[in-house]
């Protein structure tokens, strides 16, 4: 088999990259492989991703606003425009997420299958969310230990939940 790129030298390198379930195989000679590899594992795949994002985003924009109105939208905090986002694939600041939330939401669903974070909550910034997540976690645990009839541990967990609920009520005031 000859190299798919130069069609001259024999293919000795079989380059495979799999992203998003799409597999791409290139059969290359060593020289072309070196060149391709410099392109494809440097900055370019990231740009590809950004472009992909931007296109997702702009189709959302179009669907949401029709055509002309949307182009001028800017984040009030950092000044990032939709055109800039479409170009770089990067948002400008935390406020951008609020400003563009209605259009980002479907993008998250396409990308992650969901638009809700269920992981770590920062201790200080997280505040109440952290407490309520911890309470949920303990309640699940409570059901488990009751199921196993480990009542002594259940009592401990119940007390802990009570404390956290008090703490939450306190923060609400």
């Amino acid at each position, binding site marked *: 088999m000859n190299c798919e790129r130069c069609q001259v030298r024999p293919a000795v390198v079989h380059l495979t990259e799999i992203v998003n379930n799409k597999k791409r195989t290139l059969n290359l000679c060593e020289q072309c492989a070196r060149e391709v590899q410099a392109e494809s594992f440097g900055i370019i795949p990231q740009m590809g991703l950004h472009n992909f994002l931007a296109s997702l985003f702009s189709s959302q924009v179009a669907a949401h606003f029709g055509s002309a109105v949307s182009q001028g939208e800017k984040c009030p905090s950092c000044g990032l425009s939709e055109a800039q986002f479409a170009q770089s694939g990067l948002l400008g600041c935390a406020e951008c997420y609020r400003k563009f939330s209605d259009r980002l939401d479907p993008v998250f669903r396409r990308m992650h299958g969901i638009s809700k974070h269920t992981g770590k909550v920062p201790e200080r*910034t997280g505040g109440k969310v952290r407490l309520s997540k911890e309470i949920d976690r303990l309640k699940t645990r409570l059901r488990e230990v009751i199921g196993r009839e480990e009542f002594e541990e259940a009592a401990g967990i119940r007390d802990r939940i009570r404390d956290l609920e008090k703490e939450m009520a306190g923060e609400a005031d």
Partner: protein
Amino acid sequence: MSIKETVNNPHSHWMEASGPEADVVVSSRVRVARNLSISPFPHLLSESDARDIIHSVSLAIGNKEADRSRSLELVELGELAPVERQILVEKHLISPDLLEEFQKKAVVISQDEVISIMINEEDHLRLQCLLPGLQLKEAWDSINLLDDELEKTLEYAYDEELGYLTACPTNVGTGLRASVMLHLPGLVLVNRIKDVLGSVSKLGLTVRGLYGEGTEASGNLFQVSNQITMGQTEEDIINALISVTGQIVTSERAAREALLRERREHIEDRVGRAYGLLSHARIMSSEEAVRLLSDLRLGVSLKLIDIIPANLITELMVMIRPAFLVKKAGKEISPFTRDVVRANLIREKMGFK
């Protein structure tokens, strides 16, 4: 080890072949993206704003609890020579992206080089932990702890619904990217690599060649990482990757055993030739060296060769990269001289003159 030593010494903790499943799993990495809530993301920052971020992080790591005997040291990329910056990339302590507009960027590295924090890369902070072998849980624990300690000082951009906010929406949520670097010569040789990696990609994971060496021919090294950062807890992401890695390790070992059983002479010959060339060649390109080192690593893990420690091979994989050779030569050198310096270095490390 200070950062000056870091750029002079090719060795790093992650290269030690001591970790679990080290015959297949070279290293484990966990990184999280974090941003400060008050400031625009790095790509919109002026140089002086970028400096403010670096300053905030330096205060946060100065806090005793964050440091914990890790001896974290911060260095601005502008303080390093170009070749030294490149060495940090070759040692996998920073990403190539950190080299662009380096005046705005800094890195914090722990003394043992296990932890690094990139400042003003795509996000304000990228916390990374890099360990040898399969140690994703350990790496996550360590990052989780450091993250908690930094958060005591830094005000993170966090949204109750969306999680940690990042410059690129592909990282939002946990901001977590966990990856393993796998050495899979057995699966490549028995021509099963495509099936195995193809099925991995159906599980929401991304597979690619080790960056900068992206082909199968260069080293048989593959990186597997999570793609989704939202809707799963950090532990779920880590556990899914551990379980898939376990399956790949099992297939790789089965492939190696089959090769030894059915093509023993071929494998022994391959390993022996790699050893011979690496020990005696006088001119060695980077591609050839990486390929031969991969064969040698296979030989070591199959116990066909017992005079070369596995960690030396991983170390050599880094030492033979261009920036290290320039550093060793002490000046800019032509590609040809580089190939000569590389061959000399390998011979010397393998105990030959």
